[in-house]
């Protein structure tokens, strides 16, 4: 059976399931006792497993299967959800996500998930570590903590072998061997270690496995459980006698420490992958309760509406629909014209009715391209949760207005800038728990993520109740980096100072952390948002928090424009860059250094002759006594464009000029006018250097 035709469906549905799994897991983390959520998660995981198995993605299927096993115990009340089960399950979701991503990119979805699978299996077996486990036997935990490898998991059989050996008076040891970095043949060296050990005892289990060690699939060290009659020191010196061995650590175990070590190591395996940023912090050593609190999830609020009934449509089909529709509109205009000439009452009425219907239709066609911002927002709660956890902060994320709709093209682009701003808010905005308490604030910081419509724009705000931006600090840093001069600094308003944060290469973070120091600065965020035709504003109150407000156009494909005429040709100028329009007399135009200039509000701005630049055949403003001008802006700079006539304002649909035409300076695209003619869209930025 050809699976390709189902592939895109599989990918879409997998992503849906993963998303809902993520959401439900977060929900469950907030109410760990709510078994009904577990049911939903279980069903979702089950469906995912079935789909993956049908499509032949074995790794995906087996991982989901293991997750199912854990969830099955939970929903049957045989296992209580707790912190690290959540962590492991989230880890599994991440692995699943990257596998699906791999499949999306044309890969085979294979991935090494053995560690996660082992963790999940351990949970099913009941090997659940307690957070207070560190306070055990000193020697043993020292050995376990020192273990640079992911330590050994013992199965029941191996465990009983070791235990029995102990009872029979043998010595059981946990041995860790580190080979020197410059060792050429690690496999040979480790074989010699094994050989040596086997002469005076028995190796029960090693990590990595013997096969992996033989194939040099280990880093620098390996560890093993060993039964012997000799003393630990003896073993140590024996192994050290081999060349190129850097370190040997042999710890003799009694039955109690064996048990603990077995669990410790299980715990370590489980914990190791989850803690992306290993920070030594007070909370980690703190008792279970506070750890639970620290892991309090970012809460997702807002409407928890029932899933909407939708179908998936290829965006290209929508484009085709839109093109067909604009054709219909052109015919409509033509029909209206004809009807007005024919003067037939019935025809006129029919045409009028058709006009109304098509206007409604146009509205709907446009709306088809609108997608709720939820599709971008839905990954944020999880991200904020992980981030807060790794930074040892407590953060609640409150999402409102996720149903606000934006054009698909904007949605696709806005994700990355928002991720950056959110990271910024968690990392730099919200203070550490200690600082918050010191400032008399609640331990848990709040980040509000809001989206709402206003006029022809959509606003997305990220507001936290953190420390706020210190004007002085920003200025000091800006002065040091030469972004502003000290004279400029004195007169700057607060918002101007905040805008400095967007200057390239600017960072106020004292320490570049893993979270924010990813090579992208706020300058990238700003340029991305500007390229979408939006902008960012910062409001901040010292000690109270900061608000990044992003303003975006509703859609990229429809803009408001001023239509102008030059001779018999029509052009569109985007309204967003027009400052004002006016008429100037020839006598007001001066020539300065060979350039035409115009006095405009007490300064002189250049007058650009569009007719000359575009070689308009039948118009030249220098023959006119009075000239219409359009003053356009790029940042702070203004210029005036000379035009012949204003036709009027219009909403225009932007079309690109196709791949064949070379880049034409001054033209950013085209649009189709009501009469079916193409008009070019002027890019005023090209005229301002």
């Amino acid at each position, binding site marked *: 059976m050809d699976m390709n035709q189902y592939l895109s469906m599989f990918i879409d549905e997998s992503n849906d399931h993963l998303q809902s799994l993520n959401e439900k897991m977060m929900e469950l983390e907030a109410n760990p006792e709510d078994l009904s959520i577990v049911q939903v998660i279980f069903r979702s995981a089950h469906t995912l497993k079935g789909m993956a198995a049908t499509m032949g993605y074995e790794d995906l299927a087996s991982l989901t299967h293991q997750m199912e096993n854990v969830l099955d115990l939970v929903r049957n009340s045989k296992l209580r959800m707790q912190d690290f089960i959540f962590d492991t399950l989230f880890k599994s979701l991440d692995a699943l996500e990257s596998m699906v991503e791999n499949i999306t990119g044309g890969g085979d979805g294979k991935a090494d998930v053995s560690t996660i699978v082992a963790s999940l299996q351990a949970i099913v077996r009941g090997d659940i570590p307690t957070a207070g486990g560190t306070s055990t036997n000193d020697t043993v935990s020292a050995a376990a903590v020192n273990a640079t490898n992911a330590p050994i998991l013992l199965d029941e059989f191996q465990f009983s072998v070791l235990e029995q050996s102990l009872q029979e008076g043998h010595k059981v040891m946990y041995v860790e061997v580190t080979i020197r970095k410059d060792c050429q043949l690690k496999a040979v060296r480790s074989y010699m270690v094994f050989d040596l050990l086997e002469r005076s005892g028995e190796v029960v289990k090693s990590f990595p496995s013997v096969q992996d060690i033989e194939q040099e699939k280990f880093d620098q060290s390996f560890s093993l459980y060993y039964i012997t009659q000799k003393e630990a020191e003896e073993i140590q010196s024996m192994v050290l006698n081999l060349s190129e061995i850097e370190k040997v650590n042999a710890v003799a175990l009694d039955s109690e420490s064996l048990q603990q070590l077995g669990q410790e190591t299980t715990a370590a395996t489980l914990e190791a992958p989850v803690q992306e940023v290993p920070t030594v912090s007070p909370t980690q050593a703190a008792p279970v309760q506070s750890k639970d609190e620290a892991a309090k999830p970012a809460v997702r609020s807002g409407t928890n509406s029932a899933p909407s009934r939708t179908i998936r449509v290829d965006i290209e089909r929508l484009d085709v629909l839109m093109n067909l529709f604009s054709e219909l509109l052109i015919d409509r205009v033509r029909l209206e014209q004809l009807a007005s000439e024919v003067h037939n009452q019935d025809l006129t009425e029919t045409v009028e009715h058709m006009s109304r219907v098509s206007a409604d239709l146009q509205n709907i066609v446009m709306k088809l391209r609108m997608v709720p911002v939820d599709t971008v927002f839905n990954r944020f709660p999880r991200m904020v949760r992980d981030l807060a956890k790794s930074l040892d902060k407590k953060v609640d994320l409150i999402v409102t207005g996720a149903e606000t709709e934006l054009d698909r093209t904007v949605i696709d682009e806005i994700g990355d800038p928002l991720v950056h701003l959110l990271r910024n808010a968690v990392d730099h905005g919200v203070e550490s728990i200690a600082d918050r308490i010191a400032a008399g604030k609640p331990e848990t910081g709040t980040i509000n993520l809001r989206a709402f419509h206003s006029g022809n724009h959509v606003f997305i705000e990220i507001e936290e109740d953190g420390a706020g931006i210190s004007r002085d600090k920003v200025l000091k840093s800006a002065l040091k980096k030469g972004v502003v001069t000290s004279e400029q600094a004195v007169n700057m308003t607060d918002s101007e100072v905040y805008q400095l944060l967007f200057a390239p290469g600017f960072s106020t973070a004292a320490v570049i952390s893993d979270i924010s120091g990813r090579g992208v600065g706020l300058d990238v965020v700003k340029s991305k948002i500007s390229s979408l035709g939006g902008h960012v504003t910062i409001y901040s109150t010292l000690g109270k928090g900061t608000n990044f407000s992003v303003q975006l156009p509703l859609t990229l494909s429809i803009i408001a424009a001023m239509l102008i005429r030059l001779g018999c040709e029509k052009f569109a100028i985007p309204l967003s860059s027009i400052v004002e329009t006016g008429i100037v007399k020839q006598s007001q135009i001066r020539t300065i250094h060979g350039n035409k200039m115009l006095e405009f509000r007490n300064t002189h701005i250049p007058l650009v002759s569009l007719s000359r630049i575009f070689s308009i055949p039948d118009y030249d403003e220098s023959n006119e006594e009075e000239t219409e001008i359009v003053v356009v802006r790029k940042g702070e700079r203004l210029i005036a464009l000379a035009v012949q006539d204003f036709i009027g304002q219009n909403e225009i649909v932007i079309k690109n000029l*196709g791949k064949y035409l070379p880049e*034409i300076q001054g033209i950013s695209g085209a649009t189709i006018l009501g009469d079916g003619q193409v*008009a070019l869209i002027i890019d005023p930025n090209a005229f301002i250097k």
Partner: protein
Amino acid sequence: MAEDIKVIVFKLGTEEYGIEVEKVQTIERMMPITRVPKTYSFIKGVINLRGVVIPVIDLRGRFGIEEAEHTDQTRIIIVSVNDIEVGFIVDSANDVIDLNKDSIDTPPDVVGGIKAKYLDGVAKIGEDRLLIMLNLSEVLNKSEIVQLESIEE
């Protein structure tokens, strides 16, 4: 026995040219063209083809033949090659023929002023009809054309 291909036949002056039918999307009558400034002289501008903006090339201009007045017979052939959609203005287009691939010869060194590299070959139809097969990707190749002037003010 080589396979047959379907070819759209069009005229520039007295010569007959052919384009494989798969590369032709549609053939349109002349329609209003919006001039695009600051581009090559043979690009006549852009048209609105059912909601899609498509650039239009005067094929005479592209081949350096003197351009002619448009008549009732003038057609715009919309072709699509390597994701590029372009319209060719030709003097007339009114024939689709089946052509055996065997009947296409490599182009002679000199053909009616048009550079040989634009041609895929010459097909002989019947006794005295010669059909010039166009190499569309060369026709649409712009690398030989000099850089455009930029805005100077």
